Structure formats: C-alpha cells, structure tokens
C-alpha cells in the first residue's frame, strides 16, 4: 500500500487562533479516507491544506510539512497550479459555473492546454460516463448546467474535477446539500472511483463514513484523536472520545 500524502507535525493558525494542532497522518493511495468530527473541529480546514486552498484566506499561517509523493507541497518552489491539477476538489454546495454542461467540464482541460475539439469531446463523454451522468445529459450538453438538479450538479462537479485527471480528489461534505437518492448515487460512485483515484472525504454523516471509507480520522478541537482503519474506528475505538462521538453521545 503506497502512501500518497504524508503529513507531519502540521499546525495551522488563523491569526492568533490555532485551528490545527500537531497533525500527523498518512493518506494511502487508491483508498478512501474519511475525516469525521463535530462542526468546527478543523476537518475542512485540514482538507483545504492538502490542495493549499487556505492560501486564499488572509492571515493564515502554517507550520509542519505535507508531502505529496515525497515532495513538500508547501515548499516555495512547489508549483501551485500543478498541485491543484493533481489534487482536485469537490465542494459542499454544488458549484457548477453558470455555463453549459460541456463548458463546465472542458474549462479545466482548456486551461491546462487541451485545444483539440475531438479530445475535449472525448473528455466530456468519458467523465460524464464516469459519474453516471452521461445518459441524463448527452442530449443537453450545450444547455446551462444550472438547469440540472442538485444531485446532478454535484455529479457534474465531480466530472469537472475528473476532467483534469487528478490523482487525489478532496471532497468537502459532498452530499450534505443533497437528497438521499442523490447521496446514495454519489456514494456508489466513490467506490468505483477508488480504482483510479485517492479520495479524502469530509463528512458529518457517520453512517456515510462507515459505508464508504477504508480509513477514518476522528478530529476534535483541531487535533486528530484517532486515525485507523474504518472498521477498527467503528467497532473497536481505542479512545473514549471517539467511542462517545461514534455512538452519538455528543457532536
């Protein structure tokens, strides 16, 4: 089993407030890692350190190292564009661009230099098939993406992310704004995606973490309390706090 991300001694501050404390973690290739914990525990913040989306927020300072395939992504020489190409992201709220379905998907590839129309067409078909949206959208590719349902929009956002051929996909509560049917479709999708991609998913939904993930990390107040195989965390947690959270005693 290959290690994709190796996080060592990570601390993150918003101004004077410390949001992440001494995080050590490994994220394995072609596995699904779930990050669970109550609101405000730092799991989304942690997720956003992995593709450096926190760089957008003023006053953030970060200590420690995050290595992707053994290279520190916070090194000055690390190419941010390349990082975000390799580490894609799907957000909590479906956020397709106000463009056509087709243009949403080809946006990333075009930015990274793909110009050939046939190749772009192929990318659109391949990614929409990967997220099981092709049959529903193949006759309306040139209609606005905003006309899709919430669940369809989120699958489109996943397809848009796949279109730049990332190695890792970060998902920040991707189903929290969706109905149960759309949620189960996306959960089913995750399993298929692990053949090619490494997935890190933040979720509020404990059952979801149990259903889909291989590894689970439990975050509390900016610390990782426990980090293990999902079945171990759910059946035999070592820490009392983990057990309390999983059994629903708080959070």
């Amino acid at each position: 089993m290959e290690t994709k991300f190796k996080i060592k001694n990570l601390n993150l501050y918003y101004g004077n407030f410390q949001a992440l404390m001494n995080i050590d973690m490994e994220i394995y290739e072609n596995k699904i890692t779930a990050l669970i914990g109550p609101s405000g525990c730092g799991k989304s913040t942690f997720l956003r350190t992995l593709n450096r989306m926190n760089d957008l927020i003023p006053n953030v300072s970060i200590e420690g190292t995050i290595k992707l395939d053994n290279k520190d992504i916070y090194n000055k020489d690390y190419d941010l564009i390349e990082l975000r190409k390799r580490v894609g992201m799907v957000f909590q709220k479906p956020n397709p661009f106000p463009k056509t379905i087709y243009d949403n998907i080809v946006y990333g590839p075009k930015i990274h230099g793909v110009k050939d129309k046939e190749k772009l067409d192929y990318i659109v078909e391949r990614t929409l098939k990967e997220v099981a949206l092709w049959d529903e959208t193949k006759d309306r590719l040139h209609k606005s993406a905003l006309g899709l349902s919430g669940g369809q929009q989120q699958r489109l956002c996943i397809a848009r992310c796949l279109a730049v051929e990332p190695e890792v996909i970060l998902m920040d509560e991707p189903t929290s704004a969706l109905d149960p049917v759309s949620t189960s479709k996306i959960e089913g999708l995750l399993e298929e995606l692990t053949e090619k991609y490494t997935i890190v998913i933040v979720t509020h939904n404990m059952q979801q973490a149990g259903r889909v993930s291989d590894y689970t990390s439990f975050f509390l107040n900016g610390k990782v309390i426990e980090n293990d195989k999902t079945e171990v965390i759910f059946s035999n947690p070592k820490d009392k706090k983990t057990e309390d959270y999983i059994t629903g005693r708080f959070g």
Partner: protein
Amino acid sequence: MKKYEKVIEKLILISAMIATISVALITVFIFQSGISVIADYGVINFIFGTEWSPGSGIYGIFPLIAGTLSVTLGSLIIGIPTGIACAIFLSEILPKKFSKYFKSAIELLAGIPSVVYGFFGLVVLVPAIRTYIVPIFQKFNPNVAPTGFSILAGAIILAIMILPTIVSISENAIAAVPIEYKEASLALGANKRETILKIIIPAAKSGIISSIILGMGRAIGETMAVLLITGNMAKVPSSILDPVATLTGTIAMEMSYAPPSHQKALFAVGIVLFVIIMLLNVIAQLSVKGLGGKRN
C-alpha cells in the same frame, strides 16, 4: 387595518403619483412645445439637415446629434476599459483594507458638480490639448482645428464623469459573484488571471453591461461640463480635434435669448434627446433580460 396605516398608504400612493405625473407632464410639455417645428420642417429635414442657423430659421440638427454621439462614443471608448479594469482591481486584486479608500474616492467623483469638471477641462485639459496634442496632428494635417476645444476634450472629461457609475456598479456585480465559482476555478488549477477573465467577468456580465448603459445615459445627458470645453460649433466634425456642439449644450446656451420660433426648435431638440434616451433605456432593459434569459 389600522387607521394610520391607511393614511400612510395614501401618502405613499400620492408620492408615487407625483413622480409619475411629473414625468408625464414634462413629456407632454416638451412634445407640445416642440412637435410643431418638426412637423412643419419635416422629420428628415430636421434630423438630417446639416445646417443649424436658428437666426435664419434653418433648423438642421444633424451636427448636434453628431456632436453628442461623437463625444459620448469617445467617452465610452476611454471610460469602459478604464472603469472595468478599475472595478476588477478594486474587487479582486487590491486587499480589502486599501480598496475601501479607493472606492470612496471614486464615489466622491460622482459628487463633484459638473461645472467644476467643465472648469477643470477649460483651464487644464483644453490648453494641454492645444500645446501637446494639436502639434502632433498638425504634422499629418496642417488644417486641423488648433484651439483645443474639441471632441477629445469633451470625451476625456465625460469619461472621468462616468467612471463612478461604471466602477461602482461593475464592482458590485463582480463582488456579487459567488465565491464558490472562484474556488472551483482555482481548485481546477486555474490561475488568478484565468479565473477573473473566464469565470468572474462572464458571471458579472449583466451588471457590467448595465453599468455601461447607465454611464452612457449620463454621458448623453451631461450639459455643463461639455458646454464649456467642446467649442460649441454646430458643424459635423471630421476629426477628434474638431469643436462640436451637443444637443444638451445647444439647448442650454441658446434658450435664454431665443425668440419664440427658435425656442420651439430647441424644444424639438429636446424631443430628439428624449427619444434617444428612451431608446437607450429600452435597449438596456432588453440586453439585461436577453443575457439573463440565456442562462436557462
């Protein structure tokens, strides 16, 4: 319903009526005073006649229309790129703590009386054009108008005057673009420039277009500043250094001493101005609707 609520409702109704009735009254008055000239003179002769000499009863307003349109167009050519670039800079590039000062400075521009702009143009811009720009043009065309009172001067001053409209409305439109779009674009590996040009500007398009149309309306209607610096020669211009007279400037200058028939002609100029601005408003509404409609 309580009694005082009814009273308030009536008061609001009356206020709304006052606004509407004023517009109606002004419209009726302008048309009543001016329509006879257009009718007697013939619409084509009036609008496309190239000679405006009210002293001899010749009312061809084409030079005035050309004057207004050339100055407005010039101001848009300068003002639109500057204004949009400024809006992007304020909302996307400059850190918030600085941009608020810049924003209030630009909004301050809107509060300066237009005669002050005109005076500034008269003492700074017109001489500057005369000393620096005219000699350059003279190398190519020795007959170019040498005074500096020109379309160029009017266009520059108007461009500054419409900046606050374009900047603040565009800036609001850009700031209203959901941050999710920006994050999605950056997370796909786009850089800041690509995100601004390909995602943020298109998403703010309808707001930016309305800012341009409102700016254009302001430019067409502006009187005082333009009057002071464009030279007021009712001639169809052939170069940007030619002096021109605008529709509004002509009305303002000539109304005070005009005998009745001339006065009617000026009201007829007012009708034309009215129609142009109405058309602009309609186009503005249609274009915003058209853009909004395309989304779905």
